[in-house]
């Protein structure tokens, strides 16, 4: 027989009529205490605290013995000492699940669960989804930050670069302290700090003809955050061949563009631009420059499209190309139709495997 001090949440007050009591327990475990409390306060209290089906303590009720959660002790077999302090509290901020989400997840994602188009169902879809981001630079930074914050289950990042001082003007994942570190390492560290629940997979390698098909095949969606035409065409061709949906994005100076490609359900990037422009025709970023906030806008749109695709809501940028002109501060939209002659997704596609295509020299200039 032990005497213990029990404090209740006001949640139980209607059944107990009090928020604190000192009670004699004939046994010596938490289970014996619960039996004693039910004897004292009656079946209404029992209903409140015990699960109808299992007869055990309800999942949403936390029991603390001398400040420790009994789940971390011996559960209802936890021994009580004379004079022990026991608290019974509903799990408002604990780790137990409520309709498939933990309390932390409910709080973390509450502002998007509230949205009718997302809800708990959409959130759970995001948590089961995987997205590959090619490039942890100007587009990949904002995109990966928002996708991680939104709770995508698994995010892959492929980039072989190291952080350079000249990147920091727009690649907001990286900081002064990261200079010379591999970008994927810097990226993973920041993203895990924002949301430790997301699984971040890093590939410290170039996205190239040799690995493109193997890599894209593993993901539900791919986000093109690359900075050069050869990679953009490679992403397109690999995704079209593997039927992986992706978001295309590109920026230069004050302008950006983006479109969403669902292979088999709309045009692809080669329908718009069958071949890469010859070297020298379009200036590189190094020559032309870019305002840092422009990839911020485009990368954020790409993240939005990714989320919409994954939860199946809204109108995607499929068959539409969105142009953003920051100087004029204007968005324009152009229709994009699937071309029957497209070398990637046309009626008789020429590109049947990536080794047939000359992707040319991948430019080293990062933007």
């Amino acid at each position, binding site marked *: 027989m032990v005497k213990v001090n029990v404090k209740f949440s006001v949640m139980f007050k*209607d059944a107990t009529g009090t928020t604190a009591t000192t009670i004699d327990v004939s046994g010596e475990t938490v289970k014996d205490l619960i039996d004693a409390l039910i004897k004292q306060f009656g079946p209404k209290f029992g209903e409140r605290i015990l699960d109808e089906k299992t007869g055990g303590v309800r999942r949403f009720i936390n029991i603390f013995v001398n400040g420790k959660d009994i789940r971390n002790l011996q559960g209802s077999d936890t021994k009580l000492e004379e004079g022990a302090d026991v608290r019974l509290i509903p799990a408002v901020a604990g780790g137990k699940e409520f309709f498939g989400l933990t309390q932390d997840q409910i709080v973390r994602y509450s502002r998007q669960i*509230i949205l009718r188009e997302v809800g708990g169902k959409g959130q759970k879809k995001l948590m089961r989804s995987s997205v590959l981001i090619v490039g942890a630079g100007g587009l990949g930074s904002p995109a990966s930050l928002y996708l991680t914050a939104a709770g995508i289950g698994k995010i892959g990042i492929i980039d072989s670069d190291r952080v350079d001082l000249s990147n920091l003007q727009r690649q907001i994942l990286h900081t002064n302290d990261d200079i010379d570190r591999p970008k994927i390492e810097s990226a993973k560290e920041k993203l895990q700090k924002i949301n430790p629940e997301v699984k971040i997979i890093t590939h410290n390698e170039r996205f190239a003809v040799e690995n493109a098909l193997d890599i894209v095949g593993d993901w539900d969606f791919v986000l093109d955050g690359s900075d050069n035409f050869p990679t953009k065409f490679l992403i397109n061709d690999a995704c079209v061949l593997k039927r992986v949906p992706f978001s295309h994005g590109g920026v230069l100076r004050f302008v950006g563009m983006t479109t969403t490609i669902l292979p088999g359900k709309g045009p692809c990037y080669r329908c718009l631009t069958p071949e890469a422009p010859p070297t020298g025709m379009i200036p590189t970023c190094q020559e032309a420059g870019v305002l840092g906030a422009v990839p911020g806008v485009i990368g954020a749109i790409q993240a939005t499209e990714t989320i919409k695709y994954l939860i199946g809501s809204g109108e995607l940028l499929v068959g539409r190309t969105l142009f953003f002109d920051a100087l004029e501060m204007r968005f324009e939209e152009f229709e994009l139709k699937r071309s029957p002659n497209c070398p990637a997704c046309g009626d008789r596609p020429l590109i049947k495997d990536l080794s047939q295509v000359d992707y040319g020299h991948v430019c080293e200039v990062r933007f």
Partner: protein
Amino acid sequence: MAEYKVDRKIDIRGEVCPYTFVKSKLAIEDLKSGQILEVIVDHAPATENVPRSLGSEGHKVLEVVKIDEHEWRIVIQKA
């Protein structure tokens, strides 16, 4: 107070807005169309916010009843 055949009951006393709505929404998503959810709250603003928000999602608010000094019962039918 009308009696309804309640299919799911959640006791979210201790929760405040917006979590009263978020949890009610998670619970109602788990029901089938036409089924009835009962929500017990002890946060006064929730008696307006939860019915309004669930109502705007198309669900039918059947009743909001004060059952104790600081406790309310909200009964909703899933659309």
